[in-house]
């Protein structure tokens, strides 16, 4: 009986993981394909990586994407933290639920609508106050900040609700004015939430195609936009090479973060266990 169940479990696991990872694996394998035709295997080669390094269009787009993602993540964390902090600590007031809902609306809004409305706003603003001049990196960054900060706000708010408010009161009580309490006590305690918010904003910005397409201008094509336009003309093995690199970077990051977190958790559990054991 147990034998049979473990067979069932085993096959489910194999099937599940295959479903998730076979596409990625085939992409990595074909990135080392000699042939120009993506689907025909013609022997091992790293020539597409070389082509990739020489492809200025892709490199430039990647650089733009990274710059946008970086600036976006920083602003999103700053604004989102303020929003999350206010939501968590403002206390009860009439219409609070409405406000909370409005902050998180970009999470559920279809990207097409967000992109279109931002485009209309930017055009109107340019007509009225002359800023932003045309569309480009700035408008993409602003657009990304609007939806990234909503994610950060949610993360920060949920982290703050689990932090004992009396910790902040204790700091006030011991003589620190509210602004100092925020920077010296609140921020360090929610630092993990800020880091994950930053990383999430960064990846979402790198990932975004739809909104960026609406608000981009000449000379500001992000990496997803370039890849998408290239794929429409037929998949080039270069894209496979690029995707492989991205997968590698992301996987390394995720694994490293996982190891760090696991170690921290283990250490914490051990500390608590020791403190309990030597009680008093």
């Amino acid at each position, binding site marked *: 009986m147990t034998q049979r169940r473990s067979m069932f479990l085993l096959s489910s696991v194999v099937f599940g993981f295959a479903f998730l990872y076979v596409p990625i694996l085939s992409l990595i394998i074909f990135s080392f394909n000699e042939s120009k035709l993506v689907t025909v295997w013609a022997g091992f080669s790293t020539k597409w990586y070389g082509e990739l390094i020489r492809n200025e269009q892709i490199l430039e787009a990647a650089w733009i994407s990274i710059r946008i993602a970086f600036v976006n993540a920083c602003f999103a964390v700053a604004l989102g933290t303020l929003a999350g902090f206010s939501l968590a600590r403002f206390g009860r007031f009439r219409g609070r639920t409405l406000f909370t809902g409005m902050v998180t609306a970009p999470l559920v809004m279809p990207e097409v609508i967000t992109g279109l409305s931002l485009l209309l706003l930017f055009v109107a603003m340019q007509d009225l106050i002359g800023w932003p001049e045309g569309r480009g990196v700035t408008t993409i960054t602003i657009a990304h900040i609007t939806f990234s900060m909503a994610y950060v706000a949610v993360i920060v708010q949920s982290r703050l609700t689990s932090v004992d408010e009396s910790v902040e009161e204790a700091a*006030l*009580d011991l003589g620190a004015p509210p602004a100092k309490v925020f920077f010296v006590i609140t921020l360090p305690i929610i630092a993990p939430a800020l880091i994950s918010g930053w990383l999430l904003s960064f990846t979402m910005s790198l990932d975004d195609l739809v909104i960026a397409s609406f608000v981009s201008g000449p000379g500001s094509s992000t990496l997803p936009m370039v890849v998408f336009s290239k794929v429409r003309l037929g998949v080039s093995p270069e894209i496979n090479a690029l995707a492989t690199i991205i997968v590698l970077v992301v996987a390394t990051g995720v694994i490293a973060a996982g190891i760090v977190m696991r170690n921290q958790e283990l250490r914490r559990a051990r500390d608590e266990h020791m403190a309990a054991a030597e009680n008093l």
Partner: protein
Amino acid sequence: MAEARSGVQTLEPWNDPDAKPYIRIQNVSKKFGDFVAVNNVSLDIYQNELFCLLGGSGCGKSTLLRMLAGFENLTNGNIFIDGVDMVGIPPYDRPANMMFQSYALFPHMTVEGNIAFGLKQDRVPKTEINKRVKEMLDLVQLGPFAKRRPHQLSGGQRQRVALARALVKQPKVLLLDEPLGALDKKLREETQFELVNIQEGSGVTFIVVTHDQEEAMTLSTRIGVMDKGEIVQVGTPTEIYEYPDSRFVADFIGSVNMFEGRIIEDEADHVRIASDEAGCNLFIDHGLSTTPGAKVWVAVRPEKISLSREKPNGEENCTTGRVDEIAYLGNLSVYRVELESGKQMRVTMPNLVRDAAERITWDERVYATWQPSSGVVLTR
């Protein structure tokens, strides 16, 4: 100066009409919407006191403490600490520090860092900070744990860090919210005495909020019993226990037998009360000044009643019933006696003899008596 002070320093400043209260709470009220959390409370607390605010949950004691710390605004009234009006002064500018029920330690700082935090806010010189932190660590016996983080400490150790952190600034008043609430029973009993010693050694005035009457009795110089946002009685532990002035206090502190009755005789040196519930006339050896016929309650503590098999002399303060339940606690036994009126009476008797056969047992008919000085007459 020293001579002037020594004249005022009595053991019971609240009985000294010349003593100046150190913390003065005047007609303080707090409303949350329609809910009145604290209702017109006035209270004088003197220097070096260890004052306990005692009451059930939701009686407003914590709200009152938070108003002293400055976390809640007053709806009405004034609070003075050492003669200074506290209204409008934010928590970070008050000469009061608070020890939180959850301890509220800063998780990202070491024990040392936690204790030093308050001094750093006052820009105390670094050498001075180090010296005072070390003194505090010695006082609460946490020297070896100075470099640890809060999560590396046991509950009792965290409690002492919280105490040290609040005490290191030498505040005029230390506010403690259920300081021993999170400790287990044995540790709590040890810590009670430690807390009293630290209070006496530091010379800081303590105001403790607690729902545990035993804790309040052990710790305090005086207790303020709160109910539904109001102070119902203020007094020393003995006064509160032996001379409660309302049924609520008598019932809340310890256990008590309450007999309803009517005054039939009220003279200068005694009162006689008829009570159907008790099944006898109650005799009290001091006068009241009530109208005869008035409805009153007489409270008698269980340990002040004695049980016997033989009928004692005298008709008053003597009733009879059947032993319904016995709880043997080792040093004493608790008897539940059903009186003829149907009322249950609680009696505790020390187990003076070892032989169980000689003790009163279940379903026996017994006589219960008490001294004329034992009953407390309550009119509310």
